[in-house]
């Protein structure tokens, strides 16, 4: 397996606490709030992103008629670039990749368009239709910032972050780009929330009578929404611009077996390490798994954005850990698990 020297240099998140640059706060806990955005069969709770004016965060940003996920992608990218100390106009636009991970894509406008088909499919909205496509958040970022490199949208349910990071690392490792903006996330709609409720997958914290074990802590899902973004660069590129990295990206993996990630032990750490960094001593690695990851999801960035949120927490943990590496391994509750490994930057 080819090994690339890749650094993580910028971070941002959009969640229940709003939009912010930098690593996520490990102490952040968001209480599920009463849903008022749509009609529910009784009091129902979820972790939602409060409304904000994108132009207040990114001056001049025009977001009219975009899916909220596209708006968050633009804001999240701007904040992550700012955190990395990158002025996008100084980059070679052909060498910047954009990789987006999402479970559901632009589901809000998709539902709007789908609902309109019952009335009159022959008179559908031509502006709305293109904005329903899952790759629109990535293409809006490309257009706004002028990035002409590879632009990829991947979907792996709650392992979408991990899939996006693995693809971004591969694009940099194979020399197809020098720098990548990676973001992942999802938004919550009535249809998505109702699906979880009908499937019996919700936590009692959502205001339902009973939940069925579906997430790592066995109490059911608290649906949330949000988006997390990061900047990944080759070492050569980062050093040329004197970037201050949070850490080194060692590797990532998604797989179909959630058991190892849900109840990690020493042997499991070795097995998971074999996936992302064959030959590395497990004594060098601190594992973050279980409840800490689940709490992170409750703090925002749910569904497809969970893995990137965990990555941000791992990068924060690196500063305090006496180990060289931190690994986050999480069951996604959807028959897949994700593993990410980051290392203190030796330089």
């Amino acid at each position, binding site marked *: *397996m*080819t090994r690339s020297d890749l650094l993580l240099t910028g971070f941002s998140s959009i969640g229940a606490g709003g939009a912010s640059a930098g690593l996520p706060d490990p102490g952040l806990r968001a209480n599920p709030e009463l849903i008022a955005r749509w009609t529910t069969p009784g009091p129902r709770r979820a972790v939602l992103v409060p409304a904000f004016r994108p132009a207040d965060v990114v001056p001049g940003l025009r977001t009219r008629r975009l899916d909220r996920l596209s708006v968050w992608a633009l804001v999240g990218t701007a904040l992550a670039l700012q955190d990395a100390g990158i002025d996008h106009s100084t980059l070679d*636009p*052909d060498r910047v990749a*954009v990789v987006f991970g999402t*479970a*559901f*894509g632009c589901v809000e406008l*998709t*539902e709007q*368009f*789908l609902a309109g*088909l019952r009335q*009159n*499919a*022959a008179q*559908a909205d*031509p502006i709305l*239709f*293109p*904005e329903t*496509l*899952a*790759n*629109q958040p990535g*293409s*809006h970022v*490309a*257009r706004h*910032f*002028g*990035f*002409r*490199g*590879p*632009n*990829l*949208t*991947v*979907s*792996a*349910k709650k392992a*979408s972050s991990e*899939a996006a990071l*693995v693809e971004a690392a*591969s694009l940099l*490792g*194979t*020399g*197809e780009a020098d720098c990548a903006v990676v973001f992942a996330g999802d938004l919550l709609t009535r*249809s998505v929330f*109702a*699906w979880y409720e*009908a499937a019996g997958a919700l936590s009692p914290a959502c205001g339902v009578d009973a939940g069925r074990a579906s997430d790592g802590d066995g109490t059911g899902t608290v649906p949330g929404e949000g988006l997390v973004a990061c900047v990944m660069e080759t070492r050569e590129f980062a050093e040329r611009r004197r970037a201050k990295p949070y850490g080194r990206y060692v590797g990532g*993996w*998604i*797989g*179909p*077996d959630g058991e190892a990630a849900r109840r990690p032990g020493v042997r499991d750490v070795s097995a998971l390490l074999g996936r992302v960094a064959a030959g590395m001593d497990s004594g060098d690695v601190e594992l973050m798994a279980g409840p800490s990851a689940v709490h992170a999801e409750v703090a925002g960035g749910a569904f497809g954005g969970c893995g990137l949120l965990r990555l941000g927490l791992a990068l924060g943990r690196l500063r305090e850990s006496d180990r060289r590496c931190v690994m986050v391994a999480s069951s996604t509750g959807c*028959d897949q698990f994700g593993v990410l490994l980051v290392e203190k930057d030796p330089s």
Partner: protein
Amino acid sequence: MSNRRSVAVTGIGVISPLGVGRETLLEALTEGRCGIGPLSVFDARFSQVPFVGEVRDLPEVDAPGSLYLSRTDRLAVFAARQAATSLANEPRIRRECPVVVSTTVAGLSDIEPEAAIEPEGYYRRGGLGPASTYPASRPSDAVARALELDGPRFGISVACASGAMAIAAAARAIADGRATVALAGGSDALCLFTLAGFNALQALDSGQCRPFDESRGGLNIGEGAAMLLLEELGHARARGADVLAVVAGWASTNDAFHPTAPHEEGLGLAMSMTQAMQRAQVEVDAIGYVNAHGTGTRLNDVAEVRAYERAFAGRGAPVPVSSTKSHIGHTLGAAGAIEAVITLLALRGGVLFPTLRLENPVPTGSVDLLRGAVRHTPMNVAMSVSAGFGGSNTSLVFALDRERGSS
């Protein structure tokens, strides 16, 4: 990268409006058959019945466990089973094999508008299964579960370049050592959602489409699926697999220009072709055939011809290009994968398929827009080109296995 691993194609599965399997597809293309006709699988309630590329008599596909399979899932599983026949007795490979399947609509083919209007009632009335097929990752899950493939799996959704990008992603995984064998392709079913969308954009031809023709009036939506079994070349040879060709190069770019329109000069598309040829280490004269994106819309076809003129500048003879969307329609998330299969058929058979109904080609001095009868010309390298909404571009370069000669 000089030390990167070579990627072989060792299996092909395809289902399209021209039928089932690569032999059927080759025969139909060689005979100049067209699979485009009036929509019959559902009623779009348009003033005029739209012309589409329909898969008639989609074979039954056994669902793995209790999994609900949408029409898109069934197309994907059907093509995947064809492509992966050589893995039937390879449990070690199946344990690690990644699955990458692209789509634009996924299960929207099976989901009623009620899911968005009154979801609680829709789910109570049996909509929970169809709604679960909505995520773009679903076709990859369906394929992995149906074929018992236990490696990483994910979906790719980058509009109409999706299928080519899925193949590029899988090839990259093999090239950088993350995988030895991977199954990749795309699938999309006809559905009201996309028909209504393209109709709203006034992008549909009211009859059969005429790509690259001066009189072209838009595209025809199609459906289908194609999957390729990709494999590290040395591994394929060692296990005696049928090496059909090599994925010699790939590249993806973005126009960063407009939500739906391509760059007028085809800059991004040209750049993806140039980078793919560089990666494949082939010169512009080496390309024997290009399977075009060629949708038949006013904007795309001119921009695309400009892109060929730019990417193949300096070539000795005009580059042979055709759009087989004139045979099967635009299969959206599956298009790049189905057209990769057609490119492989052209490469292996030395056949240049024409664009159907091309009478007055878009003016160009350096692009040979193929029309009329099928031509027979041996070649060693061929290219498939895809583009999509949001400015996505991907080019794939396929070559015959130079050392052994493709089987």
